[in-house]
């Protein structure tokens, strides 16, 4: 199986290499046969890499511990479900997984467009092949997942060894969500490649019109949604598994995933200026380029050990490969831009600072400021070490202090944007539209202040959250009211019709509402509380409105782990409301412990209970309880964000033409070729 897998990866490498070289020759000579063969070779990498991945998964299921990767990331007791997750749990497997996802994207992009854009697609195919080639070189020669376990004998010869059992999958990954989170992130990262290929192809080929930007936008939305879901799932996983009561620690690897997501968000806004008004062409092309570069930089940070992170893979020399690749991409982008910069000249210019265009401009500026702040904070310890010789720590307080105001300003712009018209908005209309959402926000803020909310940022977030939500709802309401007046339909069905007529716009508003919910959820952090206490049966712990009474401690085990478990009864006042069972597991293969958090979640707050283990001083069990307000809003916001994105990706439904019945029967002349009648009810 390992030989078949290795062979498939070598063939995939050759196919990608051929697709790149033949693609360049095809572009130069314009010979259709060569162009077609290059495209087919590019598509062929997908089945070949799939075969390689299939072989590795099969080796996991066969418990083939002569394979180094299998022995390091699996064991016999590992449940079958997690043997899939083992595929991407280490450096070699995750790089293969990356290649596989990239080959899927490339296959779809090449197949869907095989009969479209004949001037553009050869460039797209060659660029995708170039990126695939890089990753396949890594899979074959730098981090092969099919390496064998070997020992060097007395004669100096290497012997293949089959181990009795493997080291097992790290317990942190033995959680259902972890089977979904990394693929989502990787789909997001690799998804940056397709828009990059279209942008660079359009620039190199000086492709006329804005068609490429529509394609790039749709692909960006897909990648953006996957990355966003991946980030949220990562946060949810950290919250449920790591047992520290939080979901985001500004860890370098977390930051690395956030960076391309931010620039993609900027692109999804500024692209509208190019589509509607032919503006911001240079900006958009560079946003796509930078997004791709950030996805590679993120991979470099995760895998090279440049910055220390609990998420990072083992330190290795692979970083130099990524640095070289990143340098090549930079050079290619700069040269392509410089040689074709006249192609990116804008058709129009900004008419007024109070316009939709300027709100996008500010939105982009602030998003890039956030991106810079995160990147700067992530890399600053490295700069500091280079210049001062001593390493410093850039922890969560830095990122919060710098990014919270930026994020709140962005939230403000999210509300302002829909109130502004394209080209120019008068002050009076701005005041008219602004007054009641902002006024209501201030009233809600005042009420919250009166009820004891004294946290400045949480208060501002609440006011802006209300303001943005109301502007979004008023957008739906105003449009639906016009439709309702025309068609006579009720307001709710008019909202549905309105949304389906312009899915992108209204899907976008729903995404904005999801962001508001996420912000409100995050603002709850300001009011987090926690208590840690040694407990024995019968002892109590009070937190917020809850009293936790310890009923019992017991132990369980299976062939994968042994566990200690607490039974906690939760009282609210004098009423027993639930039982919670926080647990602490010891995984036998890796001898690593893992907390299993007991959680009672509501829209108001989460009661989050961790069995911290036995106190090192006197061996008594220790319970750590957290009361985290509004966390559920974050996950709800994520769900709304996904729904909005799906809606925005749907095609618009055209308004139906309703033919009025004639009062008198008309004289109908038979036609030679009768056209099919279209009635409203046919749809």
């Amino acid at each position: 199986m390992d030989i078949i897998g290795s062979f498939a990866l070598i063939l995939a490498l050759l196919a990608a290499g051929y697709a790149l070289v033949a693609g360049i020759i095809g572009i130069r000579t314009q010979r259709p046969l060569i162009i077609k063969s290059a495209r087919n070779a590019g598509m062929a990498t997908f089945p070949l890499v799939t075969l390689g991945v299939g072989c590795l998964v099969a080796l996991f299921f066969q418990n083939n511990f002569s394979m180094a990767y299998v022995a390091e990331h699996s064991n016999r007791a590992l449940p079958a479900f997690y043997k899939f997750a083992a595929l991407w749990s280490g450096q070699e497997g995750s790089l293969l997984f990356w290649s596989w996802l990239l080959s899927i994207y490339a296959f779809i992009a090449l197949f869907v467009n095989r009969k479209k854009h004949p001037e553009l697609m050869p460039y797209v195919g060659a660029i995708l092949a170039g990126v695939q080639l890089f990753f396949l070189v890594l899979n074959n020669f730098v981090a092969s997942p099919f390496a064998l376990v070997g020992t060097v004998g007395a004669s100096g010869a290497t012997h293949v060894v089959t181990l009795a059992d493997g080291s097992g999958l790290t317990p942190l990954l033995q959680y259902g969500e972890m089977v979904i989170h990394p693929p989502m992130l990787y789909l997001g990262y690799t998804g940056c490649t397709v828009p990059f290929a279209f942008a660079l192809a359009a620039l190199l080929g000086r492709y006329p019109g804005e068609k490429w930007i529509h394609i790039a936008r749709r692909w960006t939305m897909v990648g953006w949604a996957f990355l966003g879901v991946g980030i949220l799932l990562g946060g949810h996983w950290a919250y449920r598994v790591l047992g520290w009561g939080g979901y985001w620690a500004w860890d370098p690897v977390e930051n690395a995933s956030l960076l391309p997501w931010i620039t993609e968000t900027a692109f999804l806004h500024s692209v509208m200026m190019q589509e509607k008004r032919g503006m911001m062409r240079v900006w958009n092309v560079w946003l796509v380029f930078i997004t791709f570069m950030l996805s590679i930089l993120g991979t470099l940070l995760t895998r090279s050990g440049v910055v220390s992170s609990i998420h990072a893979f083992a330190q290795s020399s692979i970083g130099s490969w990524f640095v070289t690749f990143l340098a090549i991409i930079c050079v290619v982008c700069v040269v392509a831009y410089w040689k074709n910069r006249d192609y990116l000249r804008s058709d129009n210019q900004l008419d007024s600072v109070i316009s939709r265009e300027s709100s996008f401009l500010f939105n982009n500026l602030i998003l890039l400021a956030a991106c810079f702040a995160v990147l700067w904070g992530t890399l600053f310890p490295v700069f500091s070490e280079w210049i001062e010789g001593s390493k410093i720590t850039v922890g969560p307080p830095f990122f919060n202090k710098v990014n919270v105001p930026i994020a709140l300003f962005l939230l403000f712009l999210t509300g302002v944007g829909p109130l502004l018209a394209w080209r120019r908005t008068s002050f009076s209309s701005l005041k008219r539209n602004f007054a009641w959402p902002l006024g209501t926000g201030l009233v809600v803020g005042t009420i919250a202040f009166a009820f004891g909310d004294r946290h400045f940022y949480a208060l501002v977030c609440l006011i802006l959250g209300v303001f943005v939500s109301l502007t979004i709802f008023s957008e739906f309401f105003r449009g639906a009211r016009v439709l309702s007046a025309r068609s006579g339909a009720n307001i709710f069905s008019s909202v549905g019709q309105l949304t389906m007529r312009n899915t992108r716009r209204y899907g976008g508003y729903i995404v904005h509402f999801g962001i508001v919910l996420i912000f409100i959820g995050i603002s709850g952090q300001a009011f987090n509380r926690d208590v840690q206490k040694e407990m024995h049966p019968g002892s109590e712990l009070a937190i917020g409105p809850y009293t936790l009474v310890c009923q019992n401690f017991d132990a369980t085990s299976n062939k994968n782990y042994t566990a200690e478990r607490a039974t906690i009864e939760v009282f609210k006042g004098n009423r027993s409301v639930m039982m919670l069972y926080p647990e602490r597991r010891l995984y036998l293969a890796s001898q690593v412990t893992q907390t299993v958090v007991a959680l009672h979640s509501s829209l108001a707050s989460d009661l989050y209970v961790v069995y911290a283990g036995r106190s090192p001083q006197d061996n008594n069990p220790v319970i750590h309880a957290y009361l985290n307000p509004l966390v559920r809003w974050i996950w709800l916001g994520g769900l709304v964000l996904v729904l909005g994105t799906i809606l925005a990706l749907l095609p618009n439904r055209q308004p139906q033409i309703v033919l009025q019945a004639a009062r008198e029967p008309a004289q109908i002349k038979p036609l030679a070729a009768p056209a099919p009648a279209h009635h409203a009810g046919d749809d």
Partner: protein
Amino acid sequence: MITNSIRRSSVALFVFAFAILSASSISAQAPESGAGAKKLGNKIMCMCGGCNDTALKCNHMGGAFSGPCETARAELKELNERVGQGKSDDLVLQSFVQEYGPTVLISPPTNGFDLWAWLMPVIVPLLGIALVWMVVARWRRKMAAADGPPVSPELLARARDGMGRDADD
């Protein structure tokens, strides 16, 4: 007229951005207000090398106990002692920097090269705003140059009449 309104709105946006950014930088440099050891425990890192947490939040994943490790407990004990001696928060933190190096602080110091950690996230957006301002100003100059002479009401009326006749034809 338009220029004035643009100026007013831009100034308002600047003021808003400044207010928010300066609020953050002020809070970043606010002096410690005699907070206790618990607050300071969140400002120094656990120096065991096995985790990436503050001494107070030290939570060793994979370890035997999800709570402060021996190193973190020792640091918290030192912290309590120094706070108990009546030293100011800044002095206490400084003593930890002398003992463990600057990496013990959870945030970059606000002196020397490390001050740039705090300054750049403010400077770069301001430069960005200035750049956008310049680009927009250039666009507006170009637009003004491209505009023709003002059209008189008589000329407009004649043009409308002409359009009406063309439409009738």
